[in-house]
């Protein structure tokens, strides 16, 4: 038999079967982490059949183990338990089936599981899944909210009631899932995928009520955390009570403490918003009125400035100037007149002083010839000539007589 099968030289089934068995055997012993989906103890045999599933994925394998292996390593094993087993794949040519044969089984206690979670938490943190900068803000008023929660649960009721109370017109798309147990993670992953694809859903709420540590384990599942991180739609988580901290809470874009709180974060309160708008309106009003008042005051102030309010002032000044000049002119003229008058008086006094009246008053007479010439020398006249004699008190006529 050659190494390659061909159409001309095909291999018989037994050869194929044997080769498959050899391939499978090559995997060898492996340590496996899984979850018990089913345990079947067939009466009359020592072999226990276990269906071992992946908590995060929808697949499983059959595991066989001797009864003693179970009794030693994992007494009281029940469905849903997480186990660690040491096993080797086996291929059964007769039926062509595959199973793992375990020679060691350990049940993971809560302590071990929690320690695992701590390690996972550090890993995810180091990868940046908890980074606050990567968190997306939910929209202020979502068009549609995707809600992933247990059917008819208190969480579902709380989210819907409170959201509708705050914003009556809110629209929800609800997907009910198992929120604990083996089916939870795959169902939640599916729900997230569906909502993420829905273009109208712009925020997702993942909510469940309180429960034991085991009950909340699905919400610390690695695949779930990575799926929430990968969601482009913002995710609000509200898992358990305030004190519970499943890992998905760290990955979420918003962590709400309860389903009611999630509704508060997702949707604004209509009454509050109306009040805010009223307040803002009031502020706008006051601002505008204030502006107008200020401008009016400024205008009034400018208008009351004297140059505008009393333009007569321009004229007053000039009128005053003109008046002053007038008065100066008048003063000058008066001055001149007064000086003139004084002059005249002066001259009159001098004239008076020169007047012969005073001399006449002293007893002198003025003698004039017929032609009016004033006589000073006797030779100016002849005997018999008429003379005019002026005295202080009057006139005399006289004739010249020689002495």
């Amino acid at each position, binding site marked *: 038999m050659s190494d390659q099968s061909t159409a001309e030289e095909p291999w018989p089934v037994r050869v194929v079967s044997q080769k498959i068995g050899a391939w499978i055997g090559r995997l060898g012993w492996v340590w496996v982490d899984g979850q018990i989906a089913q345990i079947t103890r067939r009466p009359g045999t020592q072999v226990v059949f276990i269906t071992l599933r992946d908590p995060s994925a929808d697949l499983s394998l059959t595991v066989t183990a001797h009864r003693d292996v179970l009794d030693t390593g994992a007494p009281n094993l029940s469905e849903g338990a997480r186990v660690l087993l040491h096993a080797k794949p086996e291929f059964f040519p007769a039926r062509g089936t595959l199973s793992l044969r375990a020679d060691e089984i350990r049940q993971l206690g809560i302590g071990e599981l929690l320690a695992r979670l701590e390690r996972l938490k550090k890993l995810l943190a180091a990868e940046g899944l908890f980074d606050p900068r990567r968190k997306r803000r939910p929209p202020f008023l979502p068009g549609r909210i995707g809600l992933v929660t247990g059917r008819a649960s208190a969480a579902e009721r709380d989210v819907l009631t409170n959201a509708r109370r705050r914003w009556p017109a809110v629209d929800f798309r609800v997907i009910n899932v198992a929120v604990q147990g083996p089916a939870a993670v795959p169902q939640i992953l599916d729900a997230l995928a569906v909502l993420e694809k829905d273009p109208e859903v712009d925020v997702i709420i993942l909510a469940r009520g309180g429960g034991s540590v085991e009950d909340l384990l699905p919400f610390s599942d690695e695949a779930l955390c990575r799926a929430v991180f990968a969601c482009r739609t913002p995710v609000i988580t509200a898992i358990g009570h305030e004190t519970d901290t499943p890992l998905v809470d760290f990955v979420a874009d918003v962590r709400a403490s309860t389903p009611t709180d999630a509704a508060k974060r997702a949707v604004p309160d209509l009454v509050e918003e109306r009040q805010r708008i009223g307040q803002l309106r009031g502020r706008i009003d006051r601002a*505008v009125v204030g502006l*107008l008042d200020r*401008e009016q005051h400024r*205008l009034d102030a*400018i208008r009351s400035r004297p140059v*505008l309010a009393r*333009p007569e002032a*321009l004229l007053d000044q000039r009128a005053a100037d003109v008046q002053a000049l007038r008065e100066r002119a008048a003063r000058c003229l008066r001055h001149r007149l007064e000086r003139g008058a004084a002059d005249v008086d002066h001259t009159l006094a001098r004239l008076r002083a020169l007047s012969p009246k005073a001399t006449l008053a002293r007893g002198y007479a003025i003698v004039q010839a017929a032609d009016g010439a004033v006589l000073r020398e006797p030779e100016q006249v002849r005997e018999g000539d008429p003379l005019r004699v002026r005295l202080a008190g009057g006139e005399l006529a006289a004739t010249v007589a020689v002495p």
Partner: protein
Amino acid sequence: MTDLSYEAARAELATIVEKLEAGGTTLEESLALWERGEQLADVCQRWLDGARTRLDAARERRAEPDGNG
């Protein structure tokens, strides 16, 4: 004059007042400046009055439809 904005009118009014207060202008100029200043002040006042009217009208419209604003 009427297509002057409020700010333009106010600015020019302030300039005119400064000029008048500084003095040194002829009588003719002073009177002309004063007249223009009065016109500009009237324009400003009309703007302010118009703004108040618009505000009051908007408030009335707002109060009508739902009665509580």
